[in-house]
């Protein structure tokens, strides 16, 4: 039996640059993406490796002359990394249109970082036969663009990629389930590291790692019921220590609404006659990001998620200046409060979070929940 250890995942994240660079130098193209709404199965089906671009808390120097200070730290840091050459293994960036900053950033990236393919897929929001007809053509266009750089998507390759990612998502949800049942001795930060490895590892390599890990975890139930149950909600968290501080302050993260978390997995697959249908179906049934849905429609889903995970409070970890999340906050807070769940907002700034301050704020929030 495989040992129950998150070490391989931490290493996968740590060594990802070298591994991906080696892969790229052997001729396998690697394409970056910002947002989990990007149809990564399509990129993979073309024969490429989709890799999620992360900011990693990089201090801003070169990106300062290309971007204003009032955009989210995540993308500013990502651009900084690219300008420093840390993303030299990428053949380009492909993304789905989700927010204005991501859309602007890919265009700035294209003008300043050499690459073969820069493409934004304009994603539909509401499901309808016309929207699907449109989406199918947008995917066909993506296929053509991928073909321009030597990729080839077929029904068979797309079906295989959908199955592969479907399995990864299912296994990830298994981990979530075990953890929320108190059967997995894994901190939220550790779980994030496991997830993060999946964002930067070729899926065919990641799946066996994940499967072995879940198997080991299932065989070795361990309760971890300490701390006040909370849900964390936000966009990208690329620095696991933030979750560490939250749990060290007396909380237990029992669920999340993050795009480096549940939103990347739920639901694992879509239904449909052909592979493209399956991909589109999943797109429309995803657990929504605020950039993709009206706050008033999303709020009840978040309330259900919080209630379902028995969270007593929700901690919003928001990238500073992030319009979709900030604009939804008042509506979502109101809905949560009406359901008896309280919320705390923490904004993540470019200079990082002050650990001491975060701890104090979380502690007093937890105290308030106890009252």
């Amino acid at each position, binding site marked *: 039996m495989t040992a129950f250890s998150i070490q391989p995942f931490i290493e996968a994240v740590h060594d990802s640059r070298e591994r991906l660079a080696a892969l790229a130098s052997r001729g396998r193209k690697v394409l970056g993406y910002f947002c989990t709404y990007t149809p990564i199965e399509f990129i993979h089906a073309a024969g490429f490796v989709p890799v999620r671009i992360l900011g990693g808390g990089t201090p801003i120097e070169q990106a300062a*002359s*290309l*971007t*204003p200070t*009032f*955009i989210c730290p995540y993308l500013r840091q990502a651009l900084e990394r690219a300008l420093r050459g840390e993303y030299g293994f990428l053949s380009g960036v492909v993304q789905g*249109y989700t*927010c*204005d*900053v991501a*859309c*602007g*950033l890919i*265009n*700035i990236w294209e*003008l*300043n970082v050499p690459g073969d393919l820069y493409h*934004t897929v*304009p994603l*539909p*929001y*509401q499901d309808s036969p*016309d*929207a699907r*007809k*449109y989406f199918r*053509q*947008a995917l066909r*266009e993506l296929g053509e663009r991928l073909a321009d750089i030597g990729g080839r998507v077929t029904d068979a390759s797309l079906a295989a990629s959908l199955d592969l990612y479907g399995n990864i998502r299912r296994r990830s949800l298994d981990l979530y389930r075990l953890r929320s049942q108190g059967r997995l001795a894994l901190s939220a930060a550790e779980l994030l590291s496991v997830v993060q490895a999946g964002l930067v590892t070729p899926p065919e390599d990641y799946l066996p790692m994940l499967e072995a890990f879940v198997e080991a975890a299932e065989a070795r139930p361990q309760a971890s019921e300490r701390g006040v149950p909370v849900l964390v909600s936000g966009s990208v968290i690329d620095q696991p220590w933030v979750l560490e501080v939250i749990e060290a302050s007396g909380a237990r993260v029992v669920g999340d609404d993050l795009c480096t978390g549940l939103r990347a997995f739920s639901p694992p697959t879509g239904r449909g006659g052909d592979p493209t249908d399956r991909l589109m179906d999943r797109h429309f049934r995803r657990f929504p990001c605020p*950039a993709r849905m*009206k*706050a*008033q429609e999303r709020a009840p889903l978040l309330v259900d998620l919080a209630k379902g995970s028995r969270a007593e409070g929700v901690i919003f970890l928001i990238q*500073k*200046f992030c*319009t*979709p999340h*900030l*604009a*939804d*906050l*008042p*509506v979502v*807070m109101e809905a949560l409060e009406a359901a008896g769940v309280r919320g705390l907002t923490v904004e993540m700034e470019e200079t990082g979070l002050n650990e001491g301050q975060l701890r104090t704020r979380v502690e007093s929030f937890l105290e308030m929940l106890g009252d």
Partner: protein
Amino acid sequence: MEKAKKSYKRLRSAKELNRVVAEFYLECHEAKARGKPVGWMPPMNGVIEIFYAMDLQPVFPENWSPVCAAFGLAPRNFEVSAGMGFSRDLCGYLRNIVGYVYGPMNEEGTPLGGLPEPDLIISAYGGCVPAMKILHTLERRFPEAKVHTSELPQVGYEKIRPYHLDYCVSETHRLIEWLTETTGRKLDYDRLKEVVRLSDRACELWDEIMSYRRFIPTPISAAELGVMFVMVTRQGTQVAVDFLTGLRDEVKERAEKGIGMIEEEKLRLFWDNIPMWYNMGLFNYFEKMGGVVVAETYSAAWSMRLDPDKPIESLARKSLVSYPMVSCTSIKKRRDMVLKACRDFHIDGAVLHSNKSCVPITLGQMDMKRALEEELGIPSVVIDGDHMDANNFSVAQFQTRADAFMEMLLEKKGLTP
């Protein structure tokens, strides 16, 4: 805050504009009183023409924000939205209109009578995130209003393909069906063609007016940008065509007679991004050193043509291109447009407003700055500001930077202040 002094040579049409603005809001209130359906909608797309063709009353909440800024209502509205939990980092249009409708909306003394409440809301997915979130938030404030949610592909101008347009066409049909069902009014296609013809005529006049900016001195400057009100609220009506015809005649006459905005036009400037609506006099600040803001990015939004014989396709196309032309979906296209304007209008220097309230327009500005410098040798200066919130703008910093910039430009041209 100290405001820069008003330009002394305003256009006749600028006064005329005040009448057009007052009449528009009067019409909105009368429509409400008479029971004509009033619909709130996002700005700059083909919905407006459909409304006029179906004899429905369009109202533009986003356009109300500049009015609030000009009349000094914005700070109070910001307090209201902040009190509701809307972050001060959000776009000022959103913070303002939300504060306005959730605050003491239309209380006694509100300029122009305020906004009549909506019977219909055309909500949206598409354009920028703040614009969508504005409409979504307004829906909650007016639960009695009937809501239709339209979609627009967010695609760069130069990347538009037939399938994007097809989707817009089907969305336009869906909107028309919904309006017909909801209001019981039928769309007469001949009437629509006529409205589209008027809309096209307005665009044609718009381009013609803008083209007179190639004259030295320029007969019209960015300080007169308020005239875009007719493009935002009146496109597809005779009112717009009449107003623009008058403006065209006046601008043409001035161009031919060599009448400029100031005594001696020494520096011709370009303005990127939305103006500070609470301080439009800023454009005139450059005058003290002989500078005139000849052109700006925003005016490109109406530089297009519509085909009256294909009204639906034309309107779908209009909806599709308006946002990309002024946003970060098409940084390359926008850069090319700015370079072309700077060439055509003999620009000496560019003022780039780094606008905290509008990320989509601000992103890509630095690449534009570099292209201006490298390809045309045109220097530029960055001004930190906000088109709605005066708190994010320092007049002193603006003046220091503008002064130094103009001195440099004058020196470059071998002129003295």
